[in-house]
């Protein structure tokens, strides 16, 4: 039996009269990769921000390991074991790659030596050891994204939330990130991934949640999702949906 780790229950988020998320619910189990997909403006990042404490949801409940964490501040949520990355990469520009990751590593230790040990372990895992003394600001986009994932990992999370970490990467780079995700899953983490690149998402996800216009329109294993009428309509529009034209 899979053990549930994060439960999102009827989250609604409004900005004035604009409803960005409406009654979205799903769960993440331990050691599972869940993907959140949907067209632009579907409310994926908003939902991310609601879970990680950057926004206060209008209504609904986020439960992490039987604890209600709705409305907790961002740093508290991170300390509990949920760490996120950002859609627009945010490396600490004036700090080197190593220092970037060490800043994350300091969450669980006060000693510099221990932080350095955690950092070198994570740099090995994310292939950054060679670049450790380059400043965050002068990295390429792939490496920036990698540093961001590494920095999040250094906080030793139980759930890692990646916000479009593959956008703008080429095929080989995407493969690297996919492998990294699988490696992390093997090591016992749960992942929540927001992504547009379907070929990357489908093979690694255990469960997919589809949002459109703020509402959850489908949820299931990848093979079900690709055949789901609502999902195809959401992406292609009613007009171009081959099946609906036939009928």
């Amino acid at each position: 039996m899979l053990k549930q780790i994060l439960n999102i229950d009827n989250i609604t988020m409004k900005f004035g009269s604009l409803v960005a998320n409406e009654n979205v619910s799903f769960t993440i189990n331990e050691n599972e990769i869940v993907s959140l997909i949907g067209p632009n403006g579907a409310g994926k990042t908003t939902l991310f921000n609601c879970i990680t404490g950057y926004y206060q949801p209008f209504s609904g409940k986020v439960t992490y390991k039987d604890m209600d964490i709705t409305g907790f501040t961002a740093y508290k949520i991170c300390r509990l074991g949920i760490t996120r990355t950002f859609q627009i990469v945010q490396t600490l520009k004036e700090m080197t790659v190593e220092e970037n990751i060490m800043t994350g590593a300091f969450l669980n230790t006060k000693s510099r030596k221990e932080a350095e040990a955690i950092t070198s372990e994570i740099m090995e895992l994310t292939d950054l050891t060679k670049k450790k003394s380059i400043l965050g600001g002068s990295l390429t986009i792939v490496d920036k994204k990698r540093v961001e994932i590494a920095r999040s990992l250094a906080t030793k999370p139980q759930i890692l939330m990646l916000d479009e970490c593959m956008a703008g990467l080429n095929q080989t780079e995407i493969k690297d990130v996919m492998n990294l995700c699988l490696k992390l899953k093997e090591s016992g983490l749960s992942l929540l991934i927001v992504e547009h690149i379907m070929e990357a998402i489908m093979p690694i996800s255990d469960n997919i949640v589809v949002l459109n216009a703020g509402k959850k329109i489908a949820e299931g294993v990848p093979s079900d999702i690709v055949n789901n009428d609502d999902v195809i309509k959401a992406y292609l529009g009613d007009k171009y949906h081959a099946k609906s034209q036939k009928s």
Partner: protein
Amino acid sequence: MVKNKKTLIIIIAVLAALPLIFKSDSFHNIMVLLLIYATLGEAWNIITGFAGQISFGHAAFFGIGAYTSSVLFYRFDISPWVGMVLGGIFAAMVALIISYPTFRLKGSYFAIATLAVAEIIKQLFVSWKFVEGATGISLPIVDDSWLCMEFHTTKLPYIYIALGLFAIVIFVCNYIENSKTGFYLKAIRESHEVAESIGINTTNYKTLAMVISAFISAFAGSLYAQYVLYIDPFMIFTLDISIKIVLLTVLGGIGNIYGPLIGASILIPLSEITRVQLGGTGRGIDLMIFGLLVILVACYQPKGIIGLVNKVAKKFKKEGEGNVEANS
């Protein structure tokens, strides 16, 4: 870090030897002021250089330190050494109280708030009878004594007290820079959002930086009061001091522990020499020259003089390596 420590010890040893080599009073005077300003610069560096919160109100903490030790000495005959520590504690408490509302502000709004707070504190002291208001306090003159921190025949003790303070402060800054706190403060400077996302309680860390910074500034203030033996709100809480602290750190190298010392060793001799040479007519010339330097630094080397030094050092190192390769 170990390398840093060696460099720091050498710098302090050189500073300790200088007044014994050059024995003129005016040189000694420059040394005392230079070390006081360098200490203030280090303090400012913690909150602005490391944590990225621009403060234009550090004269407030400097002044609280100066006033605490002076009032205690003047009214109750309490040794300035005790006053110094109490001044530090008061300033830290004031910083704590100010931090709570002001850290809700971001960027330039925070800078404006610090400016306003310093001005408010100045006005309070101007109209406060107990501290002699606008008349200021002339400290009671006693014979040379370490207990009362007053020396009239020689300036050497002042230099060594100032140097001792500066040495402690620069080592503390070096320690902070290489510790968890230093990393967290820099992360806050670079990005608030990221800092929160990796579990940093940004408000607490910014407040901590502010409190440490205020504590150190107050020590420098007490020492300054004991050195000039007269204080009034207009010379202590003046914007002039706040700005000088900012300028010298920016020129020397913001966010770098050597920056304030380099900046102070340019600005203070400059302002003292122009003051001595030109008297009242030359007022402000030092800041004009200094302003020009700061503009040049801002345009060509935002990391300050220390950035320039590092760049040149790197170049030499590279050329050196090139030569080695060519030889082999």
